[in-house]
């Protein structure tokens, strides 16, 4: 293998890793930090891509410009889902974990059905974006611009989430609500407000991911399922209770995938990711940097 091929391998791995991390960002908040299972994460991503696509049909703007709008719509959607579904699931005193899994799993199926109803199962894509179909090449290493842009957005998104959780009362309140959602009322915290905000934020992060993804990926009712498992594995590899873990894990997952596509065969490249996860949790049962 030539040097440039290896460089390309690493660069591509890291780039796709950043995209995985970006997609996992919202999940790392909702699932990782708030400890609420969201089996519909993939469908959230799918929805946000359709939101971007819908806005694009109306406004004919670059998806990157539409990103704030998508994030906003998704935040509202996150609050809506929290209020209608998740809140009730969290109220369950027995089998709490399973209720969350299956309430959101049911939600996922419903969302997929709704997408099919409203958008038909046709594949759609957006070609009008400043970054679309552009590639820069440095010393024989090709770096697709849409993915570079997504990578930068990913880093920014994690920085923003991290500061928000680490530096604000909101972050503390979110963790406290996760720890004991009843006891937080003792200190004047409205758990539903805090968690609804958490979901808004998580969904907005998915919105950002969806908008970026729409610049280079097709939109389809089933698109979420493609990314969902990797997103869960990424969050768990990073460790629960630590946002930045997901970023690190995303990069690692991307890199390992890239390498195992070469070492094994491409059809088995996910085996590398799976092995990475198992190895991580066997050595560190709480993931790379997990606290929970």
């Amino acid at each position, binding site marked *: 293998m030539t040097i440039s091929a290896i460089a390309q391998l690493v660069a591509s791995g890291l780039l796709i890793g950043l995209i995985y991390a970006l997609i996992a960002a919202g999940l790392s908040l909702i699932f990782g930090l708030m400890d609420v299972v969201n089996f519909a994460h993939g469908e959230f991503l799918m929805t946000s891509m359709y939101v971007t696509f819908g806005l694009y049909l109306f406004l004919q703007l670059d998806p990157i410009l539409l990103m704030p709008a998508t994030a906003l719509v998704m935040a509202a959607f996150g609050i809506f889902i929290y209020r209608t579904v998740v809140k009730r699931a969290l109220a369950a005193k027995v089998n709490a974990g*399973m209720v969350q*899994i299956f309430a959101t799993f*049911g939600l996922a199926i*419903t969302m997929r*059905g709704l997408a*099919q109803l409203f958008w038909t199962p046709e594949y759609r894509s957006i070609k009008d974006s400043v970054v679309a179909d552009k590639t820069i090449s440095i010393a024989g290493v090709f770096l697709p611009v849409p993915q570079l842009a997504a990578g930068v957005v990913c880093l920014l998104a994690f920085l923003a989430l991290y500061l928000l959780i680490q530096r604000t009362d909101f972050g503390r309140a979110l963790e406290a609500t996760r720890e004991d959602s009843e006891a937080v009322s003792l200190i004047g915290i409205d758990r539903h407000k805090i968690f609804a905000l958490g979901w808004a934020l998580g969904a907005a992060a998915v919105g950002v991911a969806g908008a970026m993804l729409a610049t280079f990926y097709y939109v389809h009712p089933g698109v979420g399922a493609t990314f969902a498992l990797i997103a869960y594995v990424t969050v*768990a590899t990073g460790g629960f209770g630590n946002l930045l873990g997901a970023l690190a894990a995303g990069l690692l997952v991307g890199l390992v995938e890239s390498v195992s596509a070469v070492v094994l065969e491409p*059809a088995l490249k*996910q085996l590398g990711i799976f092995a990475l996860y198992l190895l991580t949790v066997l050595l560190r*049962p709480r993931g790379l940097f997990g606290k929970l």
Partner: protein
Amino acid sequence: MGVLVLLPHAISSVTILNILILTLLYAGLSQAWNILGGYCGQISLGNALYFGIGAYTSTLLLTHLGASPWFGMVVGGTIAAGLALLIGWPLFRLKGHYFVIATIVIAEGALLLFQSWPWVGGTLGIYIPFLGDSWTMLQFQTAKLPFYYVALGYAALLWLVTYTVDGGKLGHYWRAIKDNPEAAQSLGVKIFPTKMQAAALSAFFTGVGGAFYAQFVSYIDPESVMNFQISLLMTLPAVLGGLGTLWGPVVGAAVLIPVSELTRSYIGGSGQGLDLIFYGGLIMVIALLKPEGIVGLWADFTRRRRQSRPSLASQKVTP
């Protein structure tokens, strides 16, 4: 029970028999899942692995050696149980979501391996050749009744096994581990072997179910017997019916399978996703309205009748 034995004779519709067979199969599979997930609290979303192992073992034994699927069921179940022990050994130290995701990942990994393993047919899968009606080979041209009775026997057997175990030492230990492992240990419960027993039992019967399924469909490929959806389908009835209860998986399967089959059959042809909306909505509604499962309705009812005593406080002896 009597009703279940005689019922199919009154039914001529193949569709309904198909649905009944699937319902019983999933009642059994879900009961098997319930042993480890519901009673012992080790949530596995990777039971499709054991299902697939059972299906492949019996099918390969049949196509390569001409062995009867009945034999294949036992061998398949045993291999599945052995695999469960092998996997449980490193995995049972994991907690919560880490464990759940590990089970998913292992099953998905196995799916990939089976797809690129030519000896087991890879993605092409394996056809089970039809050799004429035979109980030994568990093959029937168009008859559904034999399958119905096998499925009924399977579900009943699992119910019985769970019933027996639940009332005994293992059942107590499993539920204790689920509620509080540290306390269980302090009472002499050896956590690891107890979990392993649950895992082996669960995997064995899941494997048996897989072998039956292969015979019933007469064609298997990795995607159709080891897919993540199958894992979910085994979990769903127990959760919606009532986790860690005897009747939960049965009741859950009796609601879910007919609904999912009928919605697909009668509104799935539209291609508009209405069946998905309906099915998904139903799961969501049950999960949210009755978190302890549908059998919780029955418990509510009996409880209300038993506890007609008006006030707890007034029963206390005054000092």
